[in-house]
Structures are given as structure tokens and as C-alpha cells.
């Protein structure tokens, strides 16, 4: 909570894409179509890449320390309403910011939106909204960004989507807007409870943390908050909008929806539910764990039954987010850390999958595995990239997907054994449907239409190459991630323990003894966050 820098990194991080969107809109139409497209594309790239550079700088300057908020900037915004422009980043949000910043330029380069000026502007505004919601520390400010993202996505789906785009766009908007209705009332109710106790109206998360809430109101507020987050994520059974939206959106929209915006839901749960309503979280954890597991199994089964590659990935996404929910409500350091890692990894992996599927559609005009056969022969690079994404999604050790799922399962096993056992079944199902789909689409003799398919161009390969590299790197060496995430998660988990301590002693849900694994850390890169913490503590 210190103003440890003069330069307002986070404010610039949020405003930069927004300004880029404004500049893009102002590009005159009189330039002629080609020149305009180039100028707009250049503006989009410069903006997203400089945002990425800024995010990387932030990540490089980030010192984990005790896991508190860094680079905080706080300004009065609407004094009568108690809203402040309060931004900060900690280990939990840092990598989500970085992931979003990495994905946006790649999405822009993947070329799924054509050369439209408006599309680029909407995409940049969307980036501002996504980044803003990850770094906002004022509840209303968070809500503003959270809601702001609806508008660009709505336009991206409804204008550049596939055949049933209008239906999908409206369904998406109404579902999420309805969820947010409860969130807004919940936010206001927390703030008023706080005002009632202290006489000061504020929506500041760090201040509201200290509000005393009875168990009944905690449960109600928790449900109100979680309604919005569960719809956004989506958590089973609030997912019904997502297959439609993911499938009908243009590739760029699908990537942002699944990779970045879904994380706003799960991030919201970790950041706000766990911080504000610890007792309700402890009490209702079994419910949410069950929903998480149900999502894992249900998503897997439906994905097995679907022939449409895009829907298949959409349902697999539901399953993977189930793991995030599972880890979060395990309420152990490993579990929550695993959840955060899984959020980042899932974002990277699903981006690869959606981009690859977008290119398949470009070449063959279909997503259905019935219409695709033998793609591997004419397009080996595409097949290779799809394989990496697929293996990551399955959770193959050595790719990043494994790290998150493994931590989640360990963390859950400690406190909620049977949920972890059932969830492990989900990993098997994931292997089943992904490999089936791969067999049908890529193996066998290509039919005549498929045999003509061109492989990826250099440019296209260059777009996904960074993602593939990051996925492989994080699979082998996740320590940089864990080093920074764990202190913040530990801080959060201990807060939940204190808050929920009326029921159970804090000790019972503390991290596992660290001594056994710390040796492993010194010799090789261990996955255990506990080990990392010990070493981090020593460095301080």
C-alpha cells in the first residue's frame, strides 16, 4: 500500500489502449480503404505492443515482498459517490495483466477481424476494460471496467461474428448484464454497511475489507457477488451463454472472451469474494467446489459429444475453469495458487486453440469434425500448433497446463479429498475428447478439398510462436510465476483463515510443512509453492 513509484504505471496501462481506441476512431475515412486499413492496423499494433512493453516493465519491477499491492495509484474521482481511481497490482493480478497484454497484439495480428477501423477501436477499448478490471481496487471502478467490456464484445460478436451472431451477442449481453445487476447492488450494500459502521462512504476494497458483516449478510452478499462472477467465468450451471458466444464470435472475440474475460469472473471471486466475505466463503465452499467439479465433468462429457471444434473448445473451457473454481475454494495456498496459474495457462492455451481453429475455418469453411479429415498431411505446422495447444489443455507434464491442474488437485486433496478424486476423472475425459477430435480432424487420408489446404504462412506461424514458447517455458520452469503469485495468495488465504476462524482453527488449513520440499527447490525447479515461499522469505 505504498506509493512506490512516481510514474503512474497502472493508470497509463489502462488509459493507453483507451487512447489508442480514440485515435483509431478519429482516422478519417477519406484516406481510401487500403491506406486507412494500414494506418488503423499500425495504430492498433503500436498501442497493444506499447501496452505489452508497459506490462512487461511492470512485471519486471514487481517485487513480491509480502504480497501486498504494488504500484498503487489513488485519486479522487467522484467524491460525492465515494468512488476513487484506485489501482494496484499484486501477484494474483500481475500475470493476468501480462497475459492479456500478450494476447491482444497477437489477436490483432491473427487477422480475423479484417481491416475494419471500428473493429480495431473496439478491440483496444476492450483491452482497456480488461486491464482496468484486473488492476482496479475500488469496487465501483472494478464494476465500471467489468461492465465496460460488454460493449466492445457485443459489437465484435454482432458485427464480425458468424451466422447466428445477433442471437449470440444479445444472449451474451443480457446474461452477463443480469449477473452484474446483483453485483452492483451487492457492492452498494457492502459500502453502506461500512458507512453505517464508520460514517464514511467509500468503495475502496482495502478499506471495505475491515467491514464487520454478520454471517447472514455475508452469505447474501457472497451470493450476489458470485452470481455476476459465475456468469462471467462461466461456472456451471451459468454457462449456457458461453458456447453460443464463443462459437459465433470472430476468432479475436472468442480468444478475448475465453482467455481474458472469463478470468475476470474467476479473478473477481478470488479478489473480492475471498477478501470481503471470508466466513461465507468457508461456509459455502462445498457448494462452489461441487459446482466446479460438476463443470469439469459436465463440460468434458458434452465436449465428448460435440462435433463442432469451436463448441468443443468452449466446453473444454468450462471444464478448465472448473479447475480454477476448485482450487480457489479449496482455500489452501497450493489450491489458490494453482487456480491463479491455471487462469494464466488456460488463457494462453485456449488462445492457441481458438486461433488455430479460426485458421482451419479460413481454409476449409467448417468447424465440424465430420467435414475435416487428414489436415495433418497438407498442413503439418498447423497440426503441430494445434497439438501443442491440445496437449497443454490435456495437462501433459512439461507444458504449462499441467502445473496449474496439478497444484489445484494437490491443494484440493488436502482439504476436500473426494472432490479432488472426482475432478481427476475430468483430466482423463479431457484427454479423451481432445484426442478424438484430433484424430478425426487431422489423421486419416485427406479428402480432395483438404488436400489443397495451404499450411500456415510465416506470418501466421509467427503469431502463435510466442504463445507456444511461453506455454512450453512455463511448463518446464514455472518458478517465476509461482515466486510472485504465492506471497499474495498466502496473504489472502491467511486473511480468509482469520475471517473464517470462528468456525475452524486457522492452523488446519495452513500450507503443508515446507521443510520437506525446500530441499527440492534448491536442486531443481520444484512445483511446490511452499518451497518457493521459503526461499523468497530468505531473500528478503
Amino acid at each position, binding site marked *: 500500500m505504498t506509493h512506490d513509484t512516481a510514474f503512474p504505471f497502472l493508470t497509463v496501462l489502462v488509459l493507453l489502449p483507451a487512447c489508442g481506441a480514440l485515435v483509431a476512431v478519429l482516422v478519417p475515412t477519406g484516406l481510401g480503404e487500403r491506406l486507412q486499413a494500414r494506418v488503423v492496423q499500425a495504430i492498433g499494433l503500436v498501442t497493444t505492443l506499447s501496452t505489452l512493453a508497459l506490462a512487461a516493465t511492470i512485471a519486471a519491477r514487481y517485487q513480491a515482498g509480502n504480497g501486498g499491492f504494488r504500484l498503487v495509484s489513488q485519486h*479522487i*474521482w*467522484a*467524491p*460525492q*459517490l465515494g*468512488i476513487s481511481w484506485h489501482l494496484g497490482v499484486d501477484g494474483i493480478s500481475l500475470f493476468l495483466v501480462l497475459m492479456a497484454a500478450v494476447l491482444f497484439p497477437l489477436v490483432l495480428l491473427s487477422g480475423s477481424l479484417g481491416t475494419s477501423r471500428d473493429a480495431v477501436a473496439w478491440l483496444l477499448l476492450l483491452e482497456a476494460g480488461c486491464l482496468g478490471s484486473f488492476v482496479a481496487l475500488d469496487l*465501483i471502478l472494478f*464494476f*465500471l*471496467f467489468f*461492465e*465496460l467490456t*460488454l*460493449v466492445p464484445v*457485443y*459489437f465484435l460478436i*454482432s*458485427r464480425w461474428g458468424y451466422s447466428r451472431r*445477433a442471437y449470440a*451477442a*444479445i444472449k451474451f*449481453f*443480457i446474461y452477463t*448484464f*443480469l449477473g*452484474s*445487476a*446483483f453485483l*452492483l*447492488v451487492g457492492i*452498494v*450494500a457492502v*459500502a*453502506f454497511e461500512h*458507512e453505517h459502521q464508520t460514517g464514511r462512504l467509500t468503495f475502496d476494497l482495502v478499506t471495505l475489507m475491515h467491514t464487520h458483516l454478520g454471517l447472514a449478510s455475508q452469505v447474501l452478499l457472497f451470493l450476489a457477488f458470485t452470481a455476476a462472477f459465475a456468469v462471467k467465468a462461466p461456472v456451471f450451471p451459468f454457462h449456457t451463454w458461453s458456447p453460443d458466444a464463443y462459437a459465433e464470435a470472430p476468432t479475436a472475440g472468442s480468444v478475448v472472451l475465453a482467455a481474458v474475460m472469463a478470468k475476470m469472473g474467476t479473478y473477481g471471486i478470488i479478489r473480492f469474494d475471498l477478501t470481503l466475505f471470508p466466513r461465507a466463503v468457508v461456509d459455502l465452499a462445498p457448494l462452489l467446489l461441487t459446482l466446479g467439479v460438476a463443470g469439469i465433468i459436465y463440460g468434458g462429457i458434452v465436449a465428448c459429444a460435440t462435433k463442432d471444434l469451436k463448441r468443443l473448445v468452449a466446453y473444454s473451457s468450462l471444464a478448465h475453469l472448473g479447475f480454477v473454481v476448485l482450487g480457489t475454494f479449496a482455500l489452501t495456498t497450493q489450491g489458490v495458487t494453482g487456480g491463479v496459474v491455471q487462469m494464466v495457462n488456460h488463457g494462453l492455451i485456449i488462445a492457441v486453440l481458438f486461433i488455430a481453429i479460426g485458421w482451419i475455418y479460413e481454409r476449409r469453411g467448417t468447424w465440424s469434425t465430420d467435414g475435416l479429415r487428414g489436415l495433418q498431411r497438407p498442413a503439418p505446422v498447423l497440426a503441430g500448433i494445434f497439438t501443442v495447444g491440445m496437449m497443454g489443455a490435456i495437462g501433459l507434464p512439461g507444458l504449462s497446463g499441467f502445473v496449474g491442474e496439478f497444484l489445484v488437485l494437490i491443494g484440493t486433496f488436502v482439504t476436500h479429498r473426494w472432490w479432488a478424486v472426482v475432478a481427476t476423472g475430468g483430466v482423463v475425459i479431457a484427454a479423451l475428447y481432445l484426442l478424438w477430435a484430433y484424430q478425426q480432424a487431422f489423421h486419416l487420408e485427406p479428402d480432395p478439398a483438404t488436400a489443397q489446404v495451404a499450411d500456415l504462412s510465416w506470418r501466421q506461424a509467427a503469431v502463435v510462436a510466442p504463445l507456444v514458447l511461453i506455454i512450453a517455458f512455463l511448463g518446464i520452469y514455472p518458478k517465476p510465476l509461482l515466486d510472485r503469485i504465492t506471497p499474495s495468495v498466502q496473504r489472502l488465504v491467511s486473511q480468509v483463515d482469520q475471517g473464517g476462524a470462528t468456525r475452524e482453527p486457522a492452523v488446519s488449513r495452513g500450507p503443508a510443512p515446507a521443510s520437506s520440499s525446500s530441499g527440492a527447490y534448491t536442486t531443481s525447479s520444484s512445483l511446490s509453492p511452499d518451497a518457493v515461499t521459503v526461499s523468497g522469505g530468505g531473500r528478503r
Partner: protein
Amino acid sequence: MTSVLAVAGHLALPKIAYLSIMPVLILLGGAGAMLAVSAVWPRRLPASTTTSLTVGVALAALVASLVQWGDIRHSGPHVAIAGAVVQDGFSALISVLVTSAVFLTALVADSWQRRHPSGWGPELQVLMLVSAAGAVVMGEANDLIVVFLGLEIMSIALYVLAAFDHRRQQSGEAGLKYFVLGSFSSAVFVYGIALVYGATGTTDLPQITDYLARNILLHDGLLLAGLALLLVGFAFKVAAVPFHLWTPDVYQGAPTPVTGFMAAVAKAGGFAALLRVFISSFGVLRTDWQPAVWVLALLTLTLGAVVALVQRDIKRMLAYSSINHAGFVLLGVQAATTRGVEAALYYLFVYSFMVIGSFAVITLVAGPGDDDHDLERYRGLARRSPLLALALTTMLLAQAGIPFTTGFLAKLEVVSASVGARSTALAVIAMVTAAIAGFFYLRVVLLMYAAPAEAGAGAPGYGDGADLLLAGTEAGSSSMAPSAGADEQAGPGGTLTLSATRTPVASWEVPEAPAAVAIALCVGVTVLFGLWPAPLTGFAHLARLIIP
């Protein structure tokens, strides 16, 4: 001798603090002057002259309101003219709101008159100024009789305005409907005043407050009956369900700029008086009337949002949407707290800009005759006139409550007030209806950005400069009397010049400079104060009632 003089001195008129009624005087004086000038002028006043005169009068009244505001900030709230009017931040804010609405509507009406030439004189503008004067009086009334005076001044002018477009049957129908139901509600309102007078012995609002504070009524049936009738009267004016039945027809039938004006000013005036009478004077009885307002708000919110879903006519749709918005303002009334008043005021203020802006765009998009408002007309608007589509999109999204617009902050304010007054259930319902409302706002947005090619069977010939009049009748705005369209084709609509009917869509939709200014101002206020809320929320914050 001296004693007689002294008596005469006592009998003299009360001291008139002219500043306190300056906006009213300017509005009424301007209206009178315009009538007089047009009567003696040898030819008809051209539209540009009437528009600039009205804009000048509105700006003068706006400045007077701001001077009042400065005076109140400097020397505090006070009553004037023998306690008939009150000067506080509340009245000043309403005054600023109403005069701004006149200013904007005058600019929009200019385009409307040019597009529908029918030998208009300055009557539209004169009636608008008079109606606005009534609304300002309602905002500063400190006596039930003065409230009634303002209500009638405002309403009677509005009845005529609704029926103003004599070429369309619907306009006449709207005027008559509004008149009959409106005067009925006025009668109910006066009866309510009579009962309250019977119970308390006065119509003066502070004296009523005083009386209720000092006495505990053992038999308060009379008072409560009076209160109920007052509430019904106000509910008619602000179009709260179940007293909303006139709204869709009147909004649809009235000339489009007038609809915007009505939505902004009639609501502002009605709610201003409602807030002052109920919260400031009958605040002691709030436990009696809060449940009634709760139910009223619930019905208004849900019915407005749900029925709007099935509308095919954009004016009817926005009529139901305005009912939904009235429900949100009722949230502030129901809270019955200072914060509630502040929230309701803020809501009214920003809503008036959104709704006038929306109807300004609708005025331009509507074809010749101002009677085709079918949603299909908006298909592909973004291709034809991107800026107009952008403006309407902004204002519709603001009405839906999208962040970084004033619409969001307004919803936040009323929901805060409601939660603060422990009416959380109502707040939740309100936000759910906002989500439902999002659907029909977005439907228009979707249509505007849809490719015109998709129009196909829906609206033949749109966009490629086909004869608009023909297209208008063919597309056949389903919810309207088909006779009106056929009628116009046949001849009585022949006041339209041939060139006007042959105007291609795109050039027809290009706003004249005044309307463009009005739309830009509405969008500007909506977005600017959404991004930088402090000035406007601060204004509403300081514009409290005198709550004894």
C-alpha cells in the same frame, strides 16, 4: 392619518423578490413577446427567427437560474413572495434542467419545422416556453395551490403541444387522450389538496410540516386519503404504473421533438413537486406512503421494461422505456432520504439530456410526415449516417446504464439511495429490469449496425435513395393506423413539397446545424460527465431540499 397609512402599509402586496421568479418571468415574457411580434409582423416569422428568439429566451432563463443558484450558494435557501415560492438548490437545479431542455428542444424543433413545412408560426415555441414556466414553478412551489398552478400551466400547454401536428390524426388523438386523462388527474389532485387542507387547515407546505410535527392525529383517515389522491395525481404526471396508460399513445402521437420535451420536462416538473411535497412536507408520514411508492416503483419498473420488449415502434418503445426510468426515479422517492432526493434529481437531470438527444435523432430519421418510426427504419443507419448512429447508440447505451456514461452513475445513485434506505429488494428488482431494458436498447443498436442488404423483404428500397414516402407506406409501420400513411399518399399530406418527398434517405437524415448542436450537446453531457462525474454529482449533492 398615520395609522391609516400604517394599515395601508400592512395591506400592501407582499414584497416581490424578483430574482426568485426571474426564470419564470423570462420564459413567460419571452412567450408573450414572441406572440405579440408575430401578430404585428406583416409576414410569417421564418423558422430561423423563432428558433433564435426561443434559444435566446431559454439562454436568458438559464442564466437567471444560474444566478439564482449563485445567490442560494451565497446567502442560503429562503422563501420568497409571502412564502409562495422557495429558493433552494433543489428549485435552482430544476430550473436549470427545464431551461436547458427548452434550449435543446428549440434547436431540434427547428429541424422538425423545416422538414415538415406547414406554415408554422411561433406557436410551438411559445407553448413550449409556457409549459417550461409551469415546470419551473412546480420546482419552486412552496404551497399546494402553487404546485397546482404550475402543474396546470405546464400541462395545458403540453396538451396543445401533443396535438400540434394537425396533419396527422394520431397527433390529435394524442392531444385529446392526454387532455382527458390529464385533466382527470388534475381533478384528483385538487381533491387531494382539498382533503389535506381539511385535515391540516392549510395548504402551505412548511405549515403542513409544522402542523404534522406538533400534532398527532388520532383520526388521520382524511389526511391519508388526501395524500393518496395527491400521489395518484403525481403518478399520472410522471407516468407511473398503473397511471401510465396515456403515455405510449401520447409519446407516439406527439410531434417527435415535443415527445422528447415532454419526457424531460413533464417528468422533471412532476417529480420535483412530488419530492418536495412528500419528502419535505409529509416526511413524518413516510411510513404510511413509502409502501405505496414501493409498489408503484415495482410496477413501474417491471411493466415499463417488459412491455417495451415487444414494441415495433421506436417512439412507443422509448415511451415504455421512459416508464422504466420513472421507476428508477421512484426508487429515490421511496428512499425518502436526502440521498434519495439527490439521486432522483441527478437521475432526472441526466435523463433529460439522454431522452432529448434520443428524440432529436428520431426526429431526423423519421421520414416525411413524421409518422414512420418503425424499428426497421433504423436498419443500416450506421452506413447511411455513421455519426447519427453513433449518437443514438451512445444515448441508448447510456439509458441502459453502461459505465462511463451519466446513465450508469444515475442508476448507481438511485440504487445507493435505495440500499441505504434498506429497500434492497427493490434495488435488486430495479437492476434486473435494467438488464431486461438492455435488450431492447441493444436491439435498436443491432439494427443500426446491421447490413442494409439484410433488410431484404423488410423494407424495400431503403438506402438506395428510393422514394421515401412510398417506402414508408409500403413498409407499413404496423402498429400505427394504416390510414394515416395512405391518407398522406392520397393527398391531404400534400403540404409536403414534391422535392421533400423525393429526398434520398441519407441527405434527409443530415441534421441542420441547430439540431446537430443539440445532439452534440446531449451526447457531450452524457459522456463528459460520465467520465468526469464530480461537477454534476456535486451539483445534485448541493441541491438539497430544505428538510425541516
